[in-house]
């Protein structure tokens, strides 16, 4: 290989320097602000009348002059180089410009598309928000949203009306500010989740009382932290008034119906027990009919009142620890006379040492009286009524049953016998017919004790009624 002449090395060095200069120059051109900075820098220098191309040629000529001896050769080389460079620069610049333009166009398009999507999303969310607000506004129930500091975030018109406050006044303020009703504290404080509360409000404008039921729920964020509370307020003033009227009605009917009955009953009793003087047989007979039917009417009224009280949840049970066998004995004792007149044998089979249970003895006696009374009523002369009581195998309940050898109940009637006013098709014409309410009442009373009641029977083969009382009473909310 022949060694390259020195001039070639020199030329290569000069070219690489010039390339570096060109690149610096180009980088200045691609970023406008920089160019401007440079221009501003140049402005400080004496103004140059040369074009950038001429300036470049001058720089190249100077640099080549440093390494090439012949001026002619230098001029020729630098001119040629200038030309090549200019061509190359123009080509590159136009290429970069084109690329940049394309790139910027893409970015702008992308940005515009994103903006359009964001706008659409915003419009959609805003419409949804309006819808939700419209729904909240139209809800008949009052709605109050409170943040974790007890300040109102929003309330709907129904809530404004109920609380006699306007949203403008209330938003961002503690619920109780400017509200005289101290009961409202309960809306914010000490309301366990999902609990309902009744709040009595006294209207500021006219002294009327309002009863509002507030169901409050805690609002939690995704991490399960409490961020506030939402309360739904319902005006239950009318409902309360109706409840009150109903219980007043029951109480007054109870008194008004019984008052004349007891007066008639006492008057007839005086005649019948001959305190007023002797009676002839016919007088005695008709007074007995009056007395019997009076008792029937009295029972019907008592049953109706008991049932309506039970259904309205107004019957208060007086629970006390009692010996159920004693209650059974007392009930059986009261029926002995009647059983004897019908020649019905009463058998008692009660396990010894039955544990004491929490019952309302009067109400359990009512159940027993009903079951034993029915058993005697539907058992023909010479039959047997058996009362049994024992602790169930699982030792959770006391089971009491009353069995008779009477007419029995048809299988298809069994599911209906605890219904109101249901009376068996087999009735003894000589016995006072019942009210058809006794078993319904018995069922309600047993249920209130947490027990069960059922019947087993085949037509013509007697009937067996059983009820249970839990050994440990379950208290449902007091």
């Amino acid at each position, binding site marked *: 290989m022949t060694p390259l002449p020195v001039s070639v090395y020199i030329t290569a060095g000069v070219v690489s320097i010039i390339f570096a200069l060109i690149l610096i120059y180009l980088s200045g051109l691609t970023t406008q602000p920089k160019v401007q900075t440079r221009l501003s820098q140049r402005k400080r220098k004496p103004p140059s009348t040369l074009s950038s191309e001429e300036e470049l040629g001058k720089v190249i000529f100077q640099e080549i002059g440093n390494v090439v001896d012949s001026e002619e050769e230098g001029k020729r080389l630098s001119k040629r180089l200038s030309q090549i460079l200019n061509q190359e620069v123009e080509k590159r610049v136009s290429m970069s410009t084109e690329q940049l333009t394309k790139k910027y166009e893409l970015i702008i398009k992308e940005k515009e598309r994103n903006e359009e999507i964001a706008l659409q999303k915003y419009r959609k969310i805003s419409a949804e928000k309006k819808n939700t607000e419209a729904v909240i506004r139209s809800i008949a129930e009052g709605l109050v949203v409170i943040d974790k500091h007890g300040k109102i975030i929003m309330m709907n018109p129904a809530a404004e009306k109920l609380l006699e406050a306007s949203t403008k006044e209330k938003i961002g303020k503690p619920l109780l500010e400017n509200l005289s009703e101290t009961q409202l504290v309960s809306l914010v404080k000490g309301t366990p989740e999902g609990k309902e509360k009744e709040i009595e409000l006294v209207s500021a404008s006219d002294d009327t009382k309002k009863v509002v039921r507030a169901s409050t729920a805690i609002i939690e964020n995704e991490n399960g932290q409490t961020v506030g509370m939402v309360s739904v307020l319902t005006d239950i003033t009318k409902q309360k008034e109706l409840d009150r009227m109903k219980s007043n009605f029951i109480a007054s009917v109870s008194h008004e119906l019984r*008052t004349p009955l*007891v*007066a008639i009953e006492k*008057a007839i*009793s*005086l005649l019948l*027990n001959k*305190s007023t003087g002797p009676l002839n047989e016919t007088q005695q007979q008709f007074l007995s009919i009056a007395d019997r039917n009076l008792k029937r009417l009295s029972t019907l009224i008592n049953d109706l009142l008991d049932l309506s009280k039970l259904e309205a949840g107004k019957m*208060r049970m007086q629970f006390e620890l009692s010996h159920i066998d004693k209650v059974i004995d007392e009930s059986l004792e009261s029926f002995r006379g009647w059983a004897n007149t019908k020649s019905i044998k009463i058998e008692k089979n009660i396990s010894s040492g039955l544990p004491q249970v929490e019952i309302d003895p009067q109400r359990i006696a009512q159940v027993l009286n009903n079951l034993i009374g029915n058993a005697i009523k539907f058992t023909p002369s010479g039959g047997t009524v058996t009362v049994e009581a024992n602790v169930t195998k699982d030792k959770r309940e006391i089971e009491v049953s009353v069995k008779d050898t009477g007419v029995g109940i048809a299988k298809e009637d069994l599911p209906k016998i605890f219904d109101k006013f249901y009376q068996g098709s087999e009735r003894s014409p000589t016995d006072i017919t019942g009210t058809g309410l006794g078993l319904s009442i018995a069922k309600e009373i047993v249920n209130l004790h947490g027990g069960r009641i059922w019947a087993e029977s085949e037509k013509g083969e007697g009937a067996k009624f059983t009820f249970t009382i839990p050994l440990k009473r379950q208290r449902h909310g007091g």
Partner: protein
Amino acid sequence: MEKEIKILLVDDEADFLQPMAFWFQSKGYSTVTATSGEEAIQKVKEENPDIIFLDLNIPGMDGIQTLKKIREFNKNLPAIIVSAYIDPIKMKEAEPYHISGVFYKGRTLEEGLALLESVLRRHKKLQKEE
């Protein structure tokens, strides 16, 4: 001969008072009646009865209020509360004013008599002990 025992019967229902009074009279008791709380208080003062049958549900001053007033000047008069129906709440209210028994109007005349006699016996025993 023992002094005739005097019963004060208080009830706004004359139709209930009359047969009750007749019944007790037929059993050898003497009876006085009152149809309001005010009248009852006056009769306790004037007639000095041995026992009172007091209806809880009388208009105006009710049975409990009446008994409270009576207790202000007479602590020993045995009182039997009379009621048309069982109301445990009312009964609790009456407790502080010393009641000797409760007679439900639906009970028979005989049961009323038995209650009267047992209360009188108990009261007599207590007085002897004092």
